[in-house]
Structures are given as structure tokens and as C-alpha cells.
């Protein structure tokens, strides 16, 4: 393979970084390339120091990220009374499943789990359909009100009424005290629409045109042509919405505080955790007191509840990595 000076990226770059046209011969370029390769292989003391410090940094980072989670898991499998003595790090000291039994026998927690699963499924589905349809409409080049509709939604990203007017509105719409407050108001998110729109606009126009020639209406184009191509970005948006639905607690507290039948998992967890913190963070000193009041002490129970709440997400997210990486890159850079 001979090196063409005009086409070889290396040569062009060398020229660019060293000012002006590169006047290197092909042989010189080859030699320089070989040198560069050698340079990367042969590391001096500074290079080694960098690698060592970098490795230490990343190991510490990973340990700090993982430890608190593993610690919570260890606590959840430990005997409740024994856990109060502290000193549990990565492994349970006295294994017991009592905490999980307690958690699964809490009525509120079960109701919350049911509602959360339901809102996550329904909310993700409706939100995905709505966002995709809106993005489809905005991304049609020939659509009359394309730019005005787009602006209409971009504004909602930056201007919002605030907590109180929104709550008053939901009250008068009859959304407070119902399940629908979890699904209907948050159905469209302008940010997600913009991510979807950017992706759809990058698809070739010819697809739509040829389909239109074959007599396809816009709905058919959406369902048969655009949607199948958008599967990766749909997965991204579905993941974003699902995580948001699964983790929300504030709407349950604000709108459905008086309706225990519509509580959510995270809200129940919050009530559990805050009841503990009110009892006093220094559980160790009041160990006997706490033990007297409850059979299984709360440190283990709340750890178990936390583990139950985070397991579904932890199991799913590693497999969806490539989707959210692309989605975030589109949304973040092109906004």
C-alpha cells in the first residue's frame, strides 16, 4: 500500500499541525509513523506514573461507587438486631431473610409496588407514543406549521408555571387523588421530543417520498417506515421515561397523599426511611430500645426495602447501555 500524500490523513494532519502544507515524502511519513508507534509502546517514567495514578483513581472511584450499594445489600441480609452493632461492610455477619419477609408483608409497600409497576408500564407506553408522534409531526419537512409547533414546545422546556399553579390546575381538572396524575400530565417531555426529532430528521427524505408515491398517508409512513428505523432511539426514550416513572415519589406525595391506594414504591420507601431518621440517626445507642419496640430492626428493613426497589433497574440498565449512550449524545449536543 503506497502512501498518497493528498489522501493520507496522517500526512495532512502533520502538515496542518506543523503549519502549512506538509512537504514530507512518502518514505518520511512511513518513518514518522513507525516512530509514533514506537513512542506509544515505549513508556518513560512519566508515562508509568500517569498509568499508576490513573488506575488508582479509577479503582477508588469504582469502590466508592459500589461500596455503599453492596453495604446496603449486606445489611439487608443480616439479622436485624445484630446489624445494630454496626461493623458490617461487604458481607452479612448473621444471615437472615427476616427483613425481606417484613418488607413483603407491608401492605403499603405492596400497593406501592403494584401502582409503580402499572404506572411505569402504562406511562412509558403512552409517553413513547405521544413523544414519537409529536416528533414525527415536527420533523416533517413539508408540514405547514413545522417551526411554530416546534417553538411552541421548546418554550415549555424553559418556562413553567411553577408548583402551585400546576397543582391548582390538576385539582380543577380532577387529576389530584387519582392514578391518572401519574400518566397524563408528564406524557410529553419537550427534551425527549427534541431527541426523537433530531433522530428522525437525520433519516433520508427519500424514504418518505417514495412511500408517498406508493400512496402511503402520513400515519402509514409513521408506523411502517419511520418507526422501525427509530427503534434504537425509541429504546432510549422508553428507558428515560421508565426510570423517571419508577423513581418518582414527589407526585405521589403532593397529589395523592390522602389516597393510600395510589401510593408508589418510592414514596413508601421514603416514609420508611424518614420514620427511621426521626427515631434518631444514632441507632447504635438506642439499640435495646429499638429492639424492644420491633422484632426486626429498621436498619435491615430499610436496606431490604431499598434493595427491592433498586433491583429491577440494576438488572435492566447494563443491557441498555448502548441505547442511552446514543440518546444522550443526540440530546445533549444538539439540544
Amino acid at each position, binding site marked *: 500500500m503506497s502512501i498518497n500524500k493528498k489522501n493520507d490523513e496522517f500526512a495532512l494532519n502533520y502538515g496542518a499541525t506543523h503549519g502549512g502544507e506538509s512537504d514530507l515524502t512518502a518514505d518520511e511519513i512511513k518513518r514518522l509513523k513507525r516512530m509514533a508507534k514506537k513512542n506509544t509502546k515505549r513508556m518513560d517514567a512519566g508515562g508509568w506514573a500517569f498509568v499508576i495514578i490513573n488506575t488508582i483513581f479509577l479503582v477508588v472511584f469504582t469502590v466508592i461507587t459500589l461500596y455503599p450499594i453492596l453495604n446496603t445489600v449486606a445489611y439487608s441480609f443480616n439479622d436485624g438486631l445484630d446489624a445494630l452493632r454496626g461493623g458490617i461492610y461487604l458481607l452479612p455477619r448473621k444471615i437472615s431473610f427476616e427483613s425481606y419477609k417484613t418488607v413483603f408483608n407491608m401492605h403499603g409497600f405492596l400497593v406501592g409496588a403494584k401502582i409503580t409497576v402499572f404506572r411505569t408500564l402504562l406511562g412509558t407506553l403512552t409517553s413513547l407514543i405521544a413523544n414519537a408522534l409529536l416528533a414525527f409531526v415536527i420533523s416533517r419537512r413539508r408540514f405547514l406549521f413545522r417551526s411554530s409547533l416546534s417553538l411552541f414546545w421548546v418554550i415549555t422546556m424553559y418556562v413553567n408555571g411553577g408548583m402551585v399553579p*400546576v397543582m391548582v390546575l390538576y385539582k380543577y381538572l380532577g387529576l389530584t387523588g387519582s392514578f391518572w396524575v401519574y400518566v397524563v400530565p408528564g406524557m410529553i417531555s419537550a427534551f425527549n421530543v427534541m431527541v426523537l426529532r433530531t433522530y428522525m430528521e437525520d433519516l433520508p427524505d427519500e424514504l418518505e417520498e417514495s412511500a408517498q408515491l406508493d400512496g402511503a398517508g402520513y400515519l402509514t409512513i409513521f408506523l411502517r417506515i419511520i418507526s422501525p428505523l427509530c427503534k434504537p432511539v425509541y429504546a432510549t426514550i422508553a428507558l428515560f421515561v421508565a426510570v423517571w416513572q419508577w423513581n418518582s415519589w414527589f407526585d405521589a406525595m403532593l397529589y395523592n397523599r390522602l389516597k393510600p391506594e395510589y401510593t408508589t414504591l418510592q414514596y413508601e420507601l421514603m416514609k420508611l426511611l424518614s420514620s427511621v431518621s426521626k427515631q434518631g440517626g444514632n441507632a447504635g445507642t438506642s439499640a435495646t430500645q429499638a429492639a424492644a419496640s420491633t422484632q426486626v430492626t429498621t436498619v435491615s428493613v430499610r436496606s431490604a426495602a431499598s434493595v427491592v426497589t433498586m433491583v429491577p433497574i440494576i438488572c435492566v440498565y447494563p443491557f441498555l447501555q448502548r441505547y442511552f449512550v446514543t440518546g444522550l449524545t443526540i440530546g445533549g449536543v444538539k439540544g
Partner: protein
Amino acid sequence: MAYENDQNVNIEESESNQASNASAGTGSGASNVARKNDYYEKSLKKSKKLSKGELKRQAVLLILGGIFVVYGLVFYYLPLLGWVMAFQNFKTKKNFWESISKSKFVGLGKFKFLFQLGTLKESFEETHNIFKSIKAWIDQADFIRTIRNTFGMGALNLVSSTVMAILFAILLNEVKNKYGKKFVQTVSYLPHFLSWIIVTGILRDVLSSTGIVNDILRLFHIVDDSYNFFMHPLWFWPIVALSNIWKETGWNAIIYLAAITAIDPCLYEAAEIDGAGRLNKIRYITLPGIAPTIIILLVMNIGNVLNAGFEVQYLLGNGLVQKVSQTIDIYVLQWGIGKGDFSLGTAAGIFKSVVAIALIAISNTIAKKSGQSGLF
């Protein structure tokens, strides 16, 4: 190629016109291309001059767009009408219109209560020192304190999490081992997917008397008895910043990693020939390479500084640290909803919205002035 197409268009003009109107299916490859070209030109003409056919074709889009506009008006624009409440003594009645129209207007009274400019004026007349009087103002006016807290924590979070994300992205990018890199990255995303409820719960455990931080402090005899971090106002802001770093570093680094990957590898090769070490390559190639991304994300996030101050502060705050933990959103929740003063809550919300928009506009202008592309 183009010549061929033109020829086909000429030859099959009448036929293809018919075909595109009737939208019938089959034909040879060549005539397909021709038809498309023809169709394209016609549609371009049509898009300038609206014909009935085009309107008919776009009916679906118009209906869908209309539905979305109605939805947006109800859920995003109607609350803006509720801003009227801030200038009233709002009392809830049977329906929205009745409540709005029958509540008494009080002008800027609610805003005066929020800002308590009188306090500032009094203390300035007393001391004639602007810094001292602002301090007194912050001490005495609840809402001013929440503004300080919101901005303070927002800025601290923004700076610390951005710096950490960039550092993490750059260092991770330098790792040569593919599997190690993948593992660290996968782990780094994990906390982002946990709710703040879980994260604050975990944080309480880690910092509790039996948690690892106190164990380590005891091990090195830094403290004799366990130290309760949540009781000291001084620790609250750092704790919030650290929990943000813990939760979001890996996630925020995704974009920076993508930006680093987009840098032309030849630049690194050229730098190597010039004898640049790793640190120099990071300084002179990687950092300038991701600078536009950093600017855009900063511009985007500066507008969100005020929005970031709710969940952690609400979940971690307690009576002892209330003076440094209360943010605007918590204030709205406490006064507007907890104590039922809807007008006051709305006024505080309006202030937040207006400041957020101003922040975006300012940071966008600065970004553009400094030669970077902004958001708009």
C-alpha cells in the same frame, strides 16, 4: 446520471404525472427514479403555493399537531395564567375561573412580603455598609436566604459535577484495557438510575455512627466518638455536592466521552511525533477538543441551576441545618402548599422562572460572544 434522469423525465413526463397522482405501484427502476424526480419538483412547487391536495395530505399532521397544541396549552400554558394568583389574595372556589375572578387583588403585596426590602433599607441606614446590611437581610428574610441557598448549592453542584465528569471522562479515555474500561463505565452509570430516596438513604447509612466514614475517622483517631455530619450547617452544602458527584459523574461523563471519541486520532499521532507526553496531549488536544461541548452543556445547565435544588435538600434537610438547606422549591412547598398560601407560593415560583430565563439568556449571550455556538 443526471443526464439520464432528465431524459427519462422528458420521455415519461405524462405517464409519470399520472402515476404520481394515482399513486399506482409498479414500474421499472428507471421510471421510478424519473417519477420521483418529477414528484419532488412538483412537491417543492406545492409547498410554496398551497394546493388542496397538499392540505388534504397534511390533514393527519394538522389534526395530530392540533391535539398536541391543545395538550400543551392545558398542561404547560394554562398554569402560566395561574400567575395572576401571585397578585391576588387567592381563595379557592368551585372552579378555576370563579376563583381567579373573585379573589381580591393585592398588587405586589406578596412580592413585598417575600423580599422584605424594608429590612435591607433599615439595616443600611443603620450601618451604612452594604455588605453588612445584605448579611442582615439574609439573616432576617427567609426567602432571601432560600435564594442564597439555591444559588449557592446550584453553583457548587454545577461546578463540582462538571469538573468531576470531565476528569472522569478524560482519565477513563486513557485506559487501554478494554474490559476494565467497560466495567468501570458500567459501574459509573449505576447510581444515576437510583432514586434520590435511595441515594439519601444510603448516604445516611454511610455517614451514620456505624457507617464506614465514622469507622475510618475513629480508626485514625480523628474523632473519638462518632461525628454526626447532618447536625452541622457547615457540612450540608458539601454533602449535597458530594452526593451529586456520586450520583451523576458517570452519567454526565457520557457526553464528554463521546466528544473525546470524536476528536481526530491523527492529532494525537502528530503530537506524539512532536514528543508530547500524555499530560500534554490531554492539555493541548483533548481539552480544546471537548471545549465546545463543555460550553454548550454549561449553558444548558446554568438555566437548570435553580431547578436542581429540591430533592436532595428536601430529603436530607432537618431542623438543625434548615438555615442552609432550604431552597426556593422547598419554600414554595412549605408556604404555598403546606400552609395553603397559594399566592405566596406562586409569587416565589414566578421569581424562579424569571431568573431561570434570565440566566439562560445571559449564559447564551456570553457563550456566543466568546466565539462558541450557543443554544439559540
